[in-house]
């Protein structure tokens, strides 16, 4: 269930960043910063937000700027995983080119990400 919760968390946060960018007509990077600024400092919540943004932010921003939806983003950065023999879980309707094709494209975009490679090893 930890794996499922990480996936939900990623899809929620990515959706919010995407929508903040849409509403404020800003870049995904600015939207991510805006979100962390909203989070209270108490109990280190804001620190956690900045830490997560530091780790996942660059790839997340890159994918959002290629107009990938939250499901595709989260599968690409491996916070959502498809178990063998199980369906590919998604919240949003699949993109026009199809979920698998979008995912292949997204993986190509983040293929050289050192951060994601390090996370996978970790």
């Amino acid at each position, binding site marked *: *269930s*930890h*794996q*499922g*919760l990480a*996936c*939900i968390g990623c*899809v*929620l946060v990515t*959706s*919010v960043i995407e*929508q*903040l960018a*849409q*509403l404020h007509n800003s870049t995904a990077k600015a939207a991510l910063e805006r*979100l962390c*600024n*909203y*989070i*209270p400092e*108490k*109990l*280190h*919540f804001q*620190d*956690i937000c900045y*830490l997560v943004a530091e780790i996942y932010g660059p790839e997340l921003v890159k994918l959002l700027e290629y107009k990938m939806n939250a499901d595709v983003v989260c599968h690409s950065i491996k916070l*959502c995983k498809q178990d063998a023999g*199980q*369906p590919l*879980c*998604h*919240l*949003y*309707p699949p993109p026009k080119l199809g979920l698998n094709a979008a995912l292949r494209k997204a993986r190509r975009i983040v293929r050289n990400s050192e951060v994601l490679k390090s996370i996978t090893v970790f």
Partner: protein
Amino acid sequence: SSVCKLPPLVKLCEKIKYVIKNQLPFEDFDGDKFSVFPTLRGYHWRGRDCNEGNATVYPGRRPHNWDVESDTNCNGIWGVDPKDGIPYEHKFCKGTESKGIILLGDSAGAHFHIPPEWMTAAQMSLRVFSDLPLAFTNEFDWPQFSGITGFLNSTIGGWTDSFYLYLRRRNLCNHRDFQNISKNGGSSQNLLDLMKSLARDHVLDNPAIVIYYAIGNDVCNGRPDTVAHMTTPKQMHSNVMEMLQYLDSHLPKGSHVILTGLVDGRFLWDQLHNRYHPLGQLNKDVTYKQLYSFLSCLRVSPCIGWMSSNETLRNFTSERALQLSNVLKEIARSEKFASFDIFYMDFPLKKIAEEWHNLGGEAWQLIEPVDGFHPSQIATALGARILWQKALHEWPQVLGKENPFNSQIEAVFRDQGGH
């Protein structure tokens, strides 16, 4: 769990784990299970302690020496009337059948709620997230606004109405005598463990009204083979009888137990499946049907049985819930206990929906918007009034008499030290 390995969070996580494991207030210096700290199972969950340096002073106990010198039961009434030398506690509370309210419940009883503003980009601001630390340290529950033990004005929409507030209004001597012993995921199977955090001495304390309120988790789980993991009627009987036997040996004589039946969760799908989730409102692209399917796919659905597009499964889940409610009904009808009498009521979903409709509301507003599963603040408050009215008309002996000294208590002690 990995977040808890971060150095700044290690100690905080350890504290939170302690609280979650034991379901007891973290900040409780005298160890009497009552606290002066609001969250981490503190006074949002049980009446606030009025002396953290003395374990014999806590809400719900019988007053020591009529509280001549200090308030030993934390109800805000103490001292001696200078006019006649009679202790106020004796004058205002003796013979008024003081009693407390104890909830044994699940996330609905603890009032699970995630503010929809947290995932609605159009409403986001600094102010919107100001409650995040409070919600986190209360396990995303809001017992302080709940239908059984709520006592603060709601800041999450709707209004607060609770069995405790009614009981307090009926007799101000009951001030602060409440315990919300609930847990997200609470069911007949795991409430037995949770009950060990009950704070009631069968000799020293006043009687209590215990409400058993596990309204869904016996049929709700997130497993793909959900039916196989539902509680059977036989298991339900055994779990609840074990729980009642525990209560019989811990509650003061003259207590009461009210068993609440399980909800018919088909209401969720019927009201929500084609509505937009807060995340989908901006672009009209996420409905609850999609959310339910996503949660099931990830195996983190709180209730595959009801949050499903499979009508046969939804009907089966309701059928099992009805069978389990019937077990509770039969126990209430046939079993006798030394310390308490026992009653049963169906979960009043239909009545809640009718009352809300009469007030001009719509049925979907009775469900938590973010999770699409729990009762909303409105449903919680309406449910409290319905439960109180039922008890008042059908079991008045449970509630005790109205205290004729209420206005005098108010005149002398005002808000009785608040909550």
